Structure formats: C-alpha cells, structure tokens
C-alpha cells in the first residue's frame, strides 16, 4: 500500500485546526517503524530531508527507513577534498553537480541506477551490521543464489570481490543515522571517470580519503533485478527484521508546510561555503608548462579560499611586478575557476599591458585554472 503523503498534506493544510507536520503525523500513526520513500530525485532536497528527519523527528522509540534515488551527482563525505576525490572539470562539462553530505566516509557517484537507504534510530539502537543484514537478506530473498556479504568496513561485496554498497553515518545529540548506497544499474563508465581526480597528485591535505574499490552492478549478474523490485524487497525485509508493519509512505521534501524549515536546509547545503568552503585546509604545489616555460605554482587554500598564491616565473618571461599583481589578484578569492577567471580579467582590464604580456597572462591564468 502506498500513501501519497503530499496529497494528504493538501487535506491537512486545508483545515484551520490542524497544524500537522511530518513529525506529528508519525506520532499520530503510532508506529514503532516507518518506511519512507522520497518523491524527489534532487540530491540537495534529499540530503535536507535526511537532516530534517534527524533534527525534528523523535527517534527514541521509533526507527525509520528512508529510500531515495537521485539524478546523476557526486557526493563527498563531510571532511573530504573534492579536488582530491573527483574530476571537477569533467563534472562541469557533463553537468553533474557536487554535493557534500554531513556524514563521514568517502566519495560516491549516484544516478537512478543507485538506491540510497537511510536508517534513522536512537543512538542506543544504532547498529550498522543489522541494517546491512536487512539489505543482504532482502537481496537473497529475491535471488537465493546471490553471493552478497557485508564486510567489517560495512561495505557489501558481490561475489566476495566487487563492492556494491558503501556506508556512512552521523551521530547527533540523541539520534543517529546510517546511510548506504546500492549499485543496481549505475552507469559505470561515468562513475569511474568522475571519481578519478585530475589533480590529486598536486594536493597536500589532511582531508579524509576515499578507499577506491572495484565495483559492479547487481544488474551485471542478473539483468532482471531492477531498482523498484529491490526497494520493495528491502522495505519488506526491514519490517521482517525489526518486527514492524509499515507501508511505504511517499514524502515530498519540497513540502515546507509539512516539514517547516526544510527549504532553508535545502538552500544551506547548496551553498558554495558548505560544498567547497568546508574543505579542510590544503595546499597545491605543481609545475605548469606555459609557452615551454616552467612555472612553479604554490597555493594554500583555507575554507575554499586562496590564502597564499606564489608563482615562480623566469624574470625574462614576465616582469616580477606583473607576476606579483597577478598573484595578489587571486589572493583571498574563492578557489574556483569562474571566480579566478573573472578576477584575472578585471586585473588585465585595469592595467595597460602589451599584447604580448596580455597573452602570456592569459595563458598563465589558464594553467592556474586547470588545477581548480
């Protein structure tokens, strides 16, 4: 049975006496276990939905499973460095956005062939192994011959070798959530190309690093396994494992009246200051070759902002004063190719320079942008 909560919400908001939120709806339901499915394919809406449930729903005597899928996106862990973890220029060309989640762990690629599951519990009931057992049991119930096992690292492996699921978690004041992915039919060629950084060798940082693993889709071993079938099986197994009897309830994370504050949460996690600005302090140290000239580039980036920018250039190629002015233009700016390009263009406009120098600065700038 599927209840469209967004429809019910229309009814709720029509009545003056009711001021029901999702939280009070759960209280009224009186169930110890609830299964939700997000109506949205937007990563930011779905991450905000997770945050909202974690912050607003009483999870002391209640457990919730949230099932969700997103259109193509790369999601990095709380303390990761996107320049180390993924190919940002490629993602920009492909129109694949970047998101940073609040839980720890490594970098993943989502598309509609990937299922996300979030298990919300009290801190006392936090048990990742038991949650993963729900997933592996569900898969084996569908296909008894399937070789899927959870590891000590809370990965799920197919045939003992290929990773089909990774886990991350967050512990708050009184409650916790554990979420994991499940590769059903993800585009693996895009996955492997976006998750390979183009600049990791030039970065020095103490950010948490992903552990790369060979991956496979469940559909690779059984093309009849599709995401909808799997989600149904997981919902059913969740009920079995914990003795619950919840239907799958569809929730629309855009529904502010139902989840007051969720719009702000959705906006907050899309901000540059969160996605890029939360990157732990790092430095970039590399050699660029521009016009057959070796140029050393040294930058320190804190909170996603260039704190120091030093460029070593042969004096006969560009005058030192010009080089200093170039680096000053970048100091204090966001470590972002668009912003850097705008600043350098402004810098060039405000100074008179020969066409030769202008051309060199332009090509130098391109070299610097290539590491952003």
């Amino acid at each position, binding site marked *: 049975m599927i209840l469209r909560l967004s429809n019910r919400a229309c009814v709720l908001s029509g009545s003056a006496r009711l001021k029901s939120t999702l939280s009070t709806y759960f209280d009224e339901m009186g169930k110890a276990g609830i299964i939700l499915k997000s109506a949205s394919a937007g990563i930011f809406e779905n991450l905000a939905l997770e945050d909202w449930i974690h912050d607003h729903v009483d999870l002391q005597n209640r457990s919730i499973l949230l099932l969700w899928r997103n259109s193509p996106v790369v999601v990095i862990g709380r303390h990761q460095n996107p320049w180390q973890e993924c190919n940002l220029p490629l993602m920009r060309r492909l129109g694949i956005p970047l998101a940073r989640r609040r839980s720890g762990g490594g970098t993943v690629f989502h598309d509609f062939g990937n299922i996300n599951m979030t298990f919300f519990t009290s801190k006392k009931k936090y048990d990742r192994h038991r949650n993963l057992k729900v997933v592996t049991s569900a898969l084996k119930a569908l296909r008894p011959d399937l070789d899927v096992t959870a590891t000590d690292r809370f990965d799920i492996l197919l045939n003992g070798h290929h990773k089909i699921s990774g886990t991350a978690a967050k512990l708050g004041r009184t409650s916790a959530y554990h979420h994991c992915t499940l590769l059903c039919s993800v585009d693996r060629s895009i996955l492997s190309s976006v998750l390979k950084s183009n600049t990791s060798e030039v970065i020095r940082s103490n950010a*948490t690093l992903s552990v790369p693993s060979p991956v496979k889709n469940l559909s690779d071993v059984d093309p009849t396994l599709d995401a909808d079938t799997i989600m149904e099986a997981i919902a059913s197994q969740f009920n079995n494992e914990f003795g619950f009897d919840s239907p799958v309830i569809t929730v629309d994370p855009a529904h502010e009246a139902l989840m007051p504050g969720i719009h702000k949460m959705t906006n907050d996690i899309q901000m540059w200051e969160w996605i890029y600005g939360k990157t732990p302090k790092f430095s970039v140290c590399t050699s660029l070759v521009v016009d057959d000239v070796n140029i050393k580039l040294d930058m320190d980036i804190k909170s996603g902002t260039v704190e120091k920018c030093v460029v070593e250039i042969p004096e006969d190629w560009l005058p030192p004063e010009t080089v200093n002015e170039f680096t000053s233009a970048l100091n204090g700016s966001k470590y972002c190719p668009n912003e850097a390009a705008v600043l350098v263009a402004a810098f060039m406009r405000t100074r008179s320079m020969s066409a030769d120098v202008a051309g060199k600065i332009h090509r130098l700038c391109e070299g610097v942008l290539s590491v952003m």
Partner: protein
Amino acid sequence: MAMCAALRCVSTNFSAALPLLSRPAHIWTCQNSLRPNILRTLYTSSRLSGALKFTDKHEWVRVEGGVGTVGISNFAQEALGDVVYCGLPEVGTKLEQMEEFGVLESVKAASELYSPLTGEVTEINTDLADNPGLVNKACHEDGWLVKMTIEKPAELDELMDEVAYEKFIKSLDS
C-alpha cells in the same frame, strides 16, 4: 583566610617581641603551625580548579586560570573508535552551552561535539590536524580539542565531577 590570621599573629607577637629575643621563636612556631593549613587550602583549590567536569554528552572541561580546556572522555573515545579527522571551530567562535561546535570523524561515524560551556574559543589544538589519533591515545591531555573563555562560571556547577560521571556511565550500560 588562614593567611590573614597568620599575619595578625605575626604582627601582634612582633611588636611585643622586640625587647625579648626569645619571642621570635614563638613567631616562627606560630607561622609554621599555620603554614600546613595554608598549603592544604592552596593545594585543594588548585586541584579543584584543575579538576575535570563532565557533560552527559561525554565532553570534559578543565578550568585553569579562567580558561576552559575541552576534550572528550575516555568513554567517548572508546565508543568512537579511531578518530580520523577533527573538525574544530575557528578561534573567536562564540559558543552557547550545548551548542554544536565541531565534529569528530571516526570509523564509527561523524559525531557531533557539544560545548560544555558558554564562551569564546581562544585556541584550537593544531596537533590534531596531522595526528587526530591523539584524541584516542591521550583524551585527557594531548588530545584536548579547544580552549575557551568561561562567560558563565555558574554553568560549571551544573556539570558532573569525575565521581558523578563514572556513576553516570555505569547507568548507561543498564
């Protein structure tokens, strides 16, 4: 208080003692007998001011010279597992008691940190950037997280002392 009594004792005896050489010995005896009390008082005070107070979220704070040093308890570091990253606030951040001020990432999860007191962050432990494992290895000493001012000293009274905290942890197991 004990110090004032000692001084009064000395001055009284001294004015009377000047003509008699035997008196100074009495003064010294007077001072000596009081000194252990003074020392005991000072020692107790410094132990109290350096003692750990705990929150129910397993953070501790140690007050020394009006500055609170904050860290997590042994119970917390064991529960967390190996810490791989310490997300700490900027110096100058103003915190309310119980406000989230950072996050520790471990193999277990990203776990939020809650401020034990109201105050301003004056220092963060920069050793943790390259050595987050200090939180596990030396949670009460080198693994400290931040130092902060203490805007509301009365908040310290609400926190648990070591004995109360040990009892609290035992009650969690049940």
